């Protein structure tokens, strides 16, 4: 895919608009449309408007794979924005890599990947809980219980959390994983009751997360004496579970709707008032997705300047994206930039406490941007560089997923 003069820049939005994944991913599509509208209104990218090609992946990994091919081969988009789950990302990466294309993956993930074709604007596992665990240990006590959904991201996140926990002098009382989508937390809560931790660290996702918080309260647990510190329970979740089930719990994220800065106010107001704001809220995942549009804009412009508009390829955008900064004036969460080696994002994780109305009060913010490190807990695997994973033997391996 290359750009043609006078034609809009086509990008693919690959999210699920139906099925189980539609809850977060529909918001992603909406916010990206909003972002591109905004960009187009302000003169487009490199002077050319962006035309998002929207497809529905139907929460079905087979469809993700098929639509990826369609967007790349038939629609000839210059870049893809898509996926919310690791599983769908993994499903499409072989195709993306095979075509040497470019995927903007706009949400948090576990890391341990080093490809030459992705740019991620969400927090990595090593950034996510770095502040949260010490904060909770200090505030509530040393003893913690890990609960997560049974898949890769929670497990990897927990491995990171364990590192921070050890540093903070905490003690892990137990670790439980619930099948994805399950809404039965009786047995797990029973174990937690027996273990009596000071707080719970949760990486439960989606509908399960909501059930978890509800049953936590219904089973008589008290948020004051044993709060849940989560990496996922954001504004959509707290609203869906009913504010009184969410109130008092903690979330670590780079963005909260209540962040108090002019850029964010503009973003929240502008978005909610626009035709894309029908779901009535903004949350961290949306904001990360929003940022990816600007990262793309900057990357394309940089690449065009470097190789000439006609020669811009997805790969050249990626290669020119290292070090791109999204300044306070654009980024609702504040300044972020893309790492020059692993193409993940430097950002400031923040900790919010859920209030009675479902919004979050920011109780702590990192004082400076934290570096993304996809291999933080696997130092033996090597380090991720621009050209691939550099192993301890000095060999560079491409496309490691």
């Amino acid at each position, binding site marked *: 895919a290359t750009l043609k003069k006078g034609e809009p820049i086509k990008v693919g939005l690959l999210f699920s608009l139906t099925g189980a994944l539609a809850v977060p991913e529909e918001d992603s599509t909406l916010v990206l449309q909003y972002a591109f509208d905004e960009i187009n209104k302000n003169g487009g990218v490199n002077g050319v408007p962006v035309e998002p090609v929207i497809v529905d992946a139907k929460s079905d990994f087979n469809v993700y794979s098929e639509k990826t091919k369609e967007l790349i081969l038939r629609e000839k988009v210059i870049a893809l924005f898509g996926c919310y789950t690791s599983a769908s990302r993994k499903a499409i990466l072989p195709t993306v890599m095979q075509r040497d294309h470019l995927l903007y993956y706009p949400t948090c993930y576990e890391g341990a990947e080093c490809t030459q074709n992705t740019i991620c604007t969400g927090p990595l596992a090593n950034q996510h809980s770095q502040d949260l665990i010490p904060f909770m240990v200090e505030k509530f006590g040393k003893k913690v219980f890990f609960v997560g959904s049974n898949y890769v991201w929670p497990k990897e996140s927990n491995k990171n959390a364990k590192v921070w926990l050890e540093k903070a002098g905490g003690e892990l009382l137990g670790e439980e994983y619930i099948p994805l989508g399950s*809404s039965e937390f*009786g*047995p797990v809560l029973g174990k937690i009751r027996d273990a009596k931790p000071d707080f719970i660290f949760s990486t439960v996702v989606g509908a399960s997360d909501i059930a978890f918080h509800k049953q936590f309260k219904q*089973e008589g647990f008290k948020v004051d004496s044993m709060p849940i510190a989560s990496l996922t329970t954001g504004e959509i979740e707290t609203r869906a579970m009913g504010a009184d089930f969410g109130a008092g719990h903690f979330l670590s994220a780079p963005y909260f709707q209540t962040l108090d800065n002019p850029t964010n106010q503009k973003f929240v107001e502008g978005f909610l008032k626009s035709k894309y704001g029908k779901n009535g809220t903004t949350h961290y995942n949306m904001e990360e997705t929003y940022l990816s549009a600007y990262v793309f804009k900057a990357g394309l412009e940089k690449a065009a300047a470097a190789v000439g508009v006609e020669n811009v390829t997805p790969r050249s955008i990626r290669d020119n994206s290292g070090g791109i900064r999204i300044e306070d004036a654009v980024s609702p969460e504040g300044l972020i930039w893309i790492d020059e080696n692993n193409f993940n994002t430097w950002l400031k994780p923040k900790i919010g406490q859920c209030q009675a109305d479902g919004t979050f009060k920011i109780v702590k913010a990192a004082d400076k941007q934290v570096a993304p490190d996809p291999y933080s807990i696997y130092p033996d695997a090597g380090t991720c560089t621009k050209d691939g994973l550099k192993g301890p033997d000095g060999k560079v391996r491409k496309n490691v997923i």
Partner: protein
Amino acid sequence: MDLGSLLNALILGVSIASIWLIAALGLTIIYGTAGVINMAHGELIMLGAYSSYMLQFYLGLPYLLCIPASFFIVAFVGLVLERGLIRYLYNRPLDTLLATYGVSLVLMQGVRLIFGSDPKYIAAPAAFSSNISLGFASISTFRVVILGVTALLVFGLWLLFYKTRFGVQVRAVMQNKEMAASFGINSGRIYMLTFALGAGLAGVAGSLFGVLAIVLPTMGASYVVQAFLMVVVGGGSLAGSVAASGATGELQSVLAFFTNDTFARFIIFVLIVVFLRFRPQGLFAQAGARR
């Protein structure tokens, strides 16, 4: 792993069983009487949750009234479904599986179009978000409520099916429609009522699950397979479903106590296969007819 925790796990097992059972009740009625494999059962549960949500959100109906109201709303949907589609398929049981799968897609997407794909919230009385402690055992009030409702429904269904004329009629129709009709039973009406009843039960389950878990257009999908397993393992009878859910609930709770949730599920699935290997007709199924 002291005795108290194990006891707790056993008590929890009863509660899990009641959840599995109430999800399976409506299906038991529909499958057991009409032989209809209703893949839309999960979506009927979902409709129950949404009815409660609507009644509460738009009319301000107290939650406890939403439960019976959801029964009637979903029962009505069931009635329409039966009259409009299912009744043409009674002699083609496997086709009902496909047709109702289509129905489930329509219901799911219809609800999504109307209410959006974000989760909804049903408020329950504050008294329900607390727990009851009995010495070292503890259980949430809401789980007790579910258990109570389930027990009540099972008892009511038992009365209805085994102690009333209607029950005999239903069972007659399910065995041989022509003969039942030849002896003055209006089989169309019976089918219609049982289907509505089964749907209504799904509605009750939905309004309970909406509080326990989440209200989403896709929420039903997770219940339908497990409900199915219960009905078939139980052999399609009321007692069978009760026993099957009871056993599964306890197993799930105790196994999860000793291992983890995912593995507990795996074991349960395997046990179901092994069980059906030795009792291919399910629990409480009578030997086939002679030739």
